[in-house]
């Protein structure tokens, strides 16, 4: 069983919809939680990162972490066609640099105009 499981998708939504992307994990030592966006044939781009439990908001994006349930989510409000990409969750433990992260397998999102 993988340490990080991500809802596989694919996900297709109309423009303006609220999108929910989710990951679960098994390693209780994970303390840092990140979301990356990856466009086709490009390297991942960091969207947001959160330490421990709680919410973090950045524009149309909200990241939530529930450590008691070992569950993290990324919400995208007012989704745009430009949000169409693969979204990867990633996690790392206290005492390690973000350079050593464990990734989910990604959810591919398509936002239709």
């Amino acid at each position, binding site marked *: 069983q993988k340490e990080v499981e991500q809802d596989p998708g694919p996900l297709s939504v109309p423009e303006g919809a609220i999108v929910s992307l989710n990951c679960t994990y098994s390693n209780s030592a994970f303390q840092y939680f990140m979301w990356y966006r990856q466009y086709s044939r*490009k*390297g991942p781009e960091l969207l947001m*990162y959160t330490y421990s439990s709680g919410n973090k908001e950045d524009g149309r994006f909200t990241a939530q972490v529930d450590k008691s349930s070992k569950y993290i989510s990324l919400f995208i409000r007012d989704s745009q066609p430009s949000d169409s990409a693969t979204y990867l969750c990633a996690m790392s433990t206290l005492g390690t*640099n973000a*350079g*050593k992260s464990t990734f989910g*397998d*990604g959810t591919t999102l398509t936002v239709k105009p």
Partner: protein
Amino acid sequence: DAGVTQSPTHLIKTRGQQVTLRCSPISGHKSVSWYQQVLGQGPQFIFQYYEKEERGRGNFPDRFSARQFPNYSSELNVNALLLGDSALYLCASSLEFDPRTGPGNTIYFGEGSWLTVV
């Protein structure tokens, strides 16, 4: 400012051959990490280097090796290539390695090197 640059962008190798992939981090970044991303999966950690020293190794066979140079650029070497080594190899750089604070700073990925083993 130049981002993380990787070369070559695409290459095709035959089973049993050896390959060297190169990475130049963002200017001023001292930490380089390598990841393997198989199609349809997330990136999998291979190595991390900081100040020319290995700081982490993922669950990969000894056929995989890497090094970091004084200018902080890095090479990933894979020997005795297998069909299963076909993947996108990603390099990521960050400012520093500080195990006390965790990933407080952003890491930046390059565009990757697409390796096909036939």
